[in-house]
């Protein structure tokens, strides 16, 4: 995978919200890359900063209260964090498409589905209205909405949840973007519909060679679609690796916790589901040490005092945990069946 080109490069991103109660440090020193054609998942509990990270990339947050504090975002060779609003407008929808969590509220209730799709085409491509509507209809076919002819003139409230999410995907992909950001695209849907939407996204990714960033709290969704996974906690990346590495050889106690709290179908894991006790820290005043320490069964004194550095397990697998420090006691990794060495 190393030979693929970098599409999105986020470097040391810091993003905050200024609220009446003070500054919320929603994203703290986050760096990652997305390759062309790759699918990446960002996983974490709600409020961990995963959505804010991507909205900062797209610059969708109203500013203020949002504030881009530091860092660099390079997309397709251009430093878009320096772009003007007008320049960003030409990127949004055409080069980066985005799908949101709740298809019930993400579509304009007073505009027909066809117009909502055609709108993005008209904005970015020099085509006539009729041509845009024709393409909108084609997009509805592509995302698997039957009777596109009729559907195109309908309003969102005439669509079911799954259909609306398909329509959202049609909007996001209408201009064949290089990157698709999907913010919890299946969370609000029924389980059977979830699978359909994920399949659709996988198919379309292959068809259009789009990179996907999937934001989710659901590891089940991630296993299905992601090549690489980023685990975020309290505005920081605490572990990142390939899908295999995260699922088979997770290193951070938080990742262990996440995996244990997910129901799994494979028979060998007959263990009980274990919830992670407690709630994430208040980002008005993030703790000085490891943000997870207070909920971590393996926490040490040092964890409360200083933030751990990243340790490289393999070229692709990084983790920020004091257990990796040479002084730390050896802890049995509950997911490790045998000694784990670099696969590369």
């Amino acid at each position, binding site marked *: 995978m190393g030979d693929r080109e970098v599409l999105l490069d986020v470097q040391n991103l810091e993003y905050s919200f200024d*609220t*009446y109660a003070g500054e919320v440090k929603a994203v703290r020193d986050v760096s990652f890359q997305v390759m062309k054609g790759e699918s990446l998942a960002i996983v974490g509990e709600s409020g961990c900063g995963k959505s804010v990270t991507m909205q900062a990339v797209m610059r969708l947050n109203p500013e203020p209260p949002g504030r881009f504090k530091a860092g660099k975002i390079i997309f397709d060779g251009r430093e878009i964090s320096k772009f003007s609003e007008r320049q960003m407008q030409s990127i949004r929808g055409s080069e980066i498409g985005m799908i949101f969590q709740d298809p019930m509220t993400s579509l304009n209730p007073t505009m027909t589905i066809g117009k909502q799709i055609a709108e993005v085409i008209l904005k970015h491509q020099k085509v006539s209205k009729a041509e845009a509507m024709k393409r909108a209809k084609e997009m509805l076919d592509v995302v698997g909405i039957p009777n596109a002819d009729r559907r195109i003139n309908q309003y969102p409230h005439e669509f079911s949840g799954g259909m609306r999410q398909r329509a959202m995907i049609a909007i996001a992909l209408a201009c064949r973007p290089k990157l698709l950001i999907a913010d919890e695209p299946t969370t609000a849907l029924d389980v059977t519909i979830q699978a359909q939407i994920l399949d659709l996204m996988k198919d379309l990714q292959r068809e259009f060679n789009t990179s996907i960033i999937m934001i989710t709290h659901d590891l089940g969704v991630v296993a299905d679609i992601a090549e690489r996974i980023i685990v975020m906690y309290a505005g920081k990346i605490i572990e990142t690796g390939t899908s295999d590495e995260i699922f088979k050889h997770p290193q951070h106690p938080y990742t262990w916790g996440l995996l244990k709290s997910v129901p799994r179908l494979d028979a060998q894991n007959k263990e009980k589901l274990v919830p992670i*006790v*407690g*709630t*994430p*820290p*208040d980002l008005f005043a993030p703790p000085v040490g490891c943000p997870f*320490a*207070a*909920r*971590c*069964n*393996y*926490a*040490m*004194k*040092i964890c*409360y*005092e*200083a933030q751990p550095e990243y340790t490289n397990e393999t070229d692709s697998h990084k983790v920020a945990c*004091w257990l990796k*420090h040479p*002084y*730390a*006691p050896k*802890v049995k990794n509950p997911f490790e069946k045998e000694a784990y060495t670099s696969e590369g």
Partner: protein
Amino acid sequence: MVDISKDKFEIIGANASESQSIVRPSISYWQDAWRRLKMNKVAMASLVFLIFLVLMAIFGPYMRPFDYAHQDLFNTNKPFSKVHWFGTDYLGRDLFVRVWMGARVSLFIGVTIAFLDAVIGVTYGGIAGYFGGQVDNIMMRIVDILYGIPYLILVILLMVVMGQGLWTIITAMVMTGWVGMARIVRGQVLQLKEQEFVLAAKTLGASPGRIILRHLIPNALGPIIVSMTFDVPNAIFSEAFLSYIGLGIRAPLASWGTLANDATQVLLMYPMQLFIPGFFISVTMLAFNMLGDGLRDALDPRLRR
């Protein structure tokens, strides 16, 4: 740099107390609402003004040695002076005393109407919303039709028929005013009754009356209070309007509306006589509206973060 010594690498486990303490202290809905209201300076200033107004309505008329109805035809239309702080009107009555007597009447009308509207509206809307179905259908159709009847025109008609006076104003305005509250409460109850805690109460065998009174109304109290706060200035305005066109309470009793009406007799010569009651009507309406806005922001859970 943090000192990384070996002794710090000993597993002490999750810090339960700290992970609990991280959570912001939990405060009740009303505490939170009060905290938010206190931060709203405009709403607090309005509240302070209204308290001042109530106090003046009680004590103001006793601050000067004049009777509000006493006419002094040798001292008509006097400007502000040490004797008559707000001057006198065309019949030589002391305006300072009359303004605060007017405040009594205007505030009394406003508050009474808001209260009666709430009592009727909450009962009606609560019943319609709770029972739903056909009951709701019929009850709300009636409300729809009443709502369609132009408010002020009906009040004027009722006033013409019933004759002028304090209680006829109140009766006429309550007869037409409660429907707004009924709609709000019914909407709230419809939403709330689907929630789990109501189902739980039902499962436990609570009677409809108990569920409405103990579970639904308290949870709908926010919008009810906000709506009442807006009802007061509406009533004050309606009364002033009626009095201004000559359908208000009967002389010598004074409300701010009748003071404004009296002033029109000498408007071009002594506009001050209109501006004084006008000022108090305006500021009071403003204060209630601003307080209502503040309450709505403080009580509406949808706006919370």
